[in-house]
């Protein structure tokens, strides 16, 4: 049945080369943990991607209940966590995943660094990776405010003070992030929400695409 549907589509639009390009490639022996167990370090990139997928999915589902308004944000989070079936699990995935993804990203970075995998011709991909790291930190930072509890509020207050400390453009940066030169409030929350669920994910997807295309083009770096 599935085969028939596949064949029907494939006959018309020739989809086999599309997924072959993505799925069919050599896995060199030196990155296969079945050959050398120490090759497990090569998994961290994939694990980062896996946790990112969880973040994106759980985040999408959270927005079914979450409201980015200071009157209702906390209550909506409280409601989804206490009244909605599996709310605790879905929020838990997003909450803990946000930390796990940073850990994975860091381990991946360590592997690339200590193996010297960033060297020519892969310097560009190292830079893209650093940008991904910043985007992830940005996601964590903006997401942290969203539950609008005390921790979120005061952490954001501190973040904005740090931004204000930047020479020359500090005050403007702070006002731009907070939506107001002096208040951390309604406009801060809507801005952080927009950045968290639209702007940074868009940047993240673009950077991940570039990252993966470059890996495919250049291949995985050779054995040490």
């Amino acid at each position, binding site marked *: 049945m599935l085969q028939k549907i596949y064949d029907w589509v494939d006959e018309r639009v020739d989809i086999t080369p599309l997924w072959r390009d993505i799925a069919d490639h050599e896995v060199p022996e030196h990155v296969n943990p079945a050959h050398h167990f120490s090759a497990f370090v090569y998994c961290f990139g994939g694990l980062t991607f896996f946790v990112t997928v*969880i973040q994106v999915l759980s985040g999408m589902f959270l927005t079914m209940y979450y409201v980015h308004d200071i009157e209702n944000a906390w*209550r*909506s989070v409280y409601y*989804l966590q206490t009244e909605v*079936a599996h709310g605790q699990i879905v929020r838990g*995935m997003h909450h803990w995943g946000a930390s796990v993804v940073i850990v994975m990203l860091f381990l991946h970075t360590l592997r690339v660094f200590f193996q010297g995998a960033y060297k020519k011709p892969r310097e560009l991909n190292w830079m893209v990776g650093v940008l991904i790291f910043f985007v992830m930190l940005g996601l964590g930072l903006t997401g942290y405010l969203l539950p609008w509890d005390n921790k979120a509020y005061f952490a954001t207050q501190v973040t904005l003070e740090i931004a204000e400390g930047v020479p020359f453009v500090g005050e403007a940066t702070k006002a731009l992030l907070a939506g107001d030169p002096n208040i951390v409030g309604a406009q801060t929350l809507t801005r952080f929400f927009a950045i968290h669920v639209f702007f940074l994910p868009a940047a993240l997807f673009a950077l991940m695409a570039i990252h993966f295309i470059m890996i495919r083009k250049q291949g995985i770096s050779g054995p040490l």
Partner: protein
Amino acid sequence: MSEKRNQVSRRQFLNYTLTGVGGFMAAGMLAPMVRFAIDPVLKTSAQSDMVAVADLSEISDEPTRIDWTIDQVDGWYESEVPKSAWVYKDENDDIIALSPVCKHLGCFVNWQGDESHPDQFYCPCHDGRYYKSGVNVPNTPPEEPLDEFEVRIDGQTLYLGQTKPHREA
């Protein structure tokens, strides 16, 4: 190795196990999220109680519009929501409380809303009409009678509850 023992090739075996393990992981990830998303359908809504809406002395055999509010808990948001009913006494002195929501597409109907049909409910949206009993007038857009409220009388006080389909529906 004999033909028989080789029915599942190495490649197939790997395919099956990978699909199985991958499917299991995907399901473990998605199941809570899907259950989370479809919760509104599976939640049993708390039936709201009967609310005192009027004194019986206010009710005649002419449909009168009664307005009241209920406390509504909508997720994390609590509010007072306005409700209305058309209420009258029928020939047997029973209280009839009709929902004003038109059964065509949900506009609000008015008693005697149309001058040429003085003893009917009238819906201005598409000229839907209902007899005093709440039954729809044939050949007008509505295809069902107006819903009725659950009615309870305690002394001189009229209580209304949830709407339910008309007794003649």
